[in-house]
């Protein structure tokens, strides 16, 4: 991969919370347009990595580079404006507002040729909001309060809000968590289809290995704050350490064998 094609890079990133190591020696280069998934057990440091990349947390050491610039010191707002956007493990929505209003806020803040003093329910803004809802198959929920919506819809809305700024890098923290098994694939289909119109690099955290295999070209496996494997899905899922620490698919004797060796 030539350096010119690298959109995001983490160099020697370290982060601790007291005694907990949440990130250690993280070195990652992400190419433009890659679909990258992050796997790892609970508490492995996947969300921490996203928090550091988006500027919510500052690393203890190391740096983050986006589009060739050191962005370690920037805050989430500045990074969002530069095109690093995210969704959250627990959707961050405006609970008492309707789904449409949530998107109107997103459109308003992205300030695409709309003056902030324009009425919020201006026809052009509304059109854009409805179009976005449609893209995610959420037309039916436009006037519903988001606090009353089912989990999958909330996840989609959270992602839709992150997309309003047409990000260059989109980070999705567990897009399918809290969604029933048979809805996971349709949800990912919807997301990937919505993204197909954009030239966007996607990094997503996922616990379901079938989804990882289907939707990512590359997988990073986290264990106790470290990246223990970084390759295409087939290779990573076949890795012994990954099987032992992440997916839990390693056979007991294989693990013992390794321990004995």
């Amino acid at each position, binding site marked *: 991969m030539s350096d010119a094609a690298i959109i995001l890079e983490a160099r020697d990133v370290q982060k601790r919370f007291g005694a907990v190591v949440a990130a250690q020696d993280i070195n990652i280069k992400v190419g433009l347009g890659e679909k990258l998934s992050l796997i790892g057990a609970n508490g492995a440091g996947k*969300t921490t990595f996203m*928090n550091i990349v988006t500027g*919510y*947390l500052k690393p203890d050491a190391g740096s983050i580079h986006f589009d060739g610039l050191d962005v370690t010191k920037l805050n989430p707002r500045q990074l969002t404006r530069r095109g690093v956007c995210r969704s*959250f*493990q*627990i959707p*961050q929505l405006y609970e008492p507002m309707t789904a449409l209003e949530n998107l109107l806020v997103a459109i308003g803040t992205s300030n695409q040729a709309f003056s902030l003093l324009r009425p919020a329910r201006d026809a052009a803004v509304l059109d854009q909001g409805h179009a976005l809802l449609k893209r995610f198959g959420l037309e039916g929920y436009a006037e519903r309060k988001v606090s009353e919506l089912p989990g999958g819809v909330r996840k989609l809305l959270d992602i839709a809000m992150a997309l309003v700024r047409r990000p260059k890098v989109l980070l999705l923290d567990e897009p399918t968590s809290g969604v029933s098994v048979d809805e996971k694939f349709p949800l990912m289909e919807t997301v990937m289809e919505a993204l197909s119109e954009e030239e966007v690099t996607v990094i997503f955290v996922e616990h379901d290995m079938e989804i990882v295999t289907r939707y990512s070209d590359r997988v990073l496996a986290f264990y106790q704050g470290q990246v223990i494997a970084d390759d295409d899905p087939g290779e990573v899922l076949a890795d012994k350490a990954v099987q032992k620490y992440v997916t839990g698919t390693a056979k007991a004797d294989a693990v013992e064998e390794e321990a004995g060796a």
Partner: protein
Amino acid sequence: MEFADILTILVDGVVYASWLFIVALGLTLIFGVLQILNLAHGSLYAVGAYAAASFTMLVPYFGLPPAFSLLAMLIAALAVALVLAPILERGLLRLFYGRDEVLILLVTYAVFLVLEDVTKLVWGVQPYYVFEPRNLFGNVEIGQLFYVGYDLMLIVLAAICGLAVWLGLNKTTTGKVVLAVIHNPDVSACMGVRVNWIYLLAFFVGVFLAALAGAYTAPLISVQPGISVNVIILSFAVVIIGGLGSIPGAAIGALVVGIARAAAVYEFPEAEIFIIYLVMAIVLVFRPEGLFQRTQARKI
């Protein structure tokens, strides 16, 4: 400035800080456990002072020696807490748990308004003077200057209160339960803790401390309408400087406010209130959560 001046400022400041600490201790305890910033706290102080004025009058009436007025003041504070704490906490504040904290702030503001008029209705608007107990301890000489023994006794009282609350929280089983409730009321409730009782207990102790400070400062002041307002303004400065919910914070805050005020009264009497709030604003600019609290990033 002469050494004697500095000493005077220090002693005055510490005496002032000691009763302020007792008030602030109650305020910070109520905030720590119930997450309520009690705007009526100054009124509870005032009610304590009025009750002490009434109770100490009974001492000569029953022909008891003057030293009994110290006991009368304690009983007054206890009586105030026994009457008002259940009414306010069980009868009113309980209805608003879990609601917006600013809304609860407003409820306590309403309680402040009500108590203001109730004290006027009960005790009238003429001032009460409770001078006798102040002569009980004679005068004490420090560095060629004389101080009223009673004032210095207040410092001891403040130390006792602080220590008692600290030991009560950290060394008793009930205290541990209170700490558990502070940490997480919902989980504590699931573990079988009767959270309601803990709330009432903490509120009771908070009210008692406010009334106690009022009762024992009654001999230093003229007890009249308006004292509540001054006290609430001062004790807010104290807890905000120290950090809401922290006992050592309340102590440091009280000392800062007490000494700053004493210095201001001595050097620039015009600037008394101004200085206290200036100190508070400066602390907040550098330590947003007060001197004794750390901010944490929310997990997302």
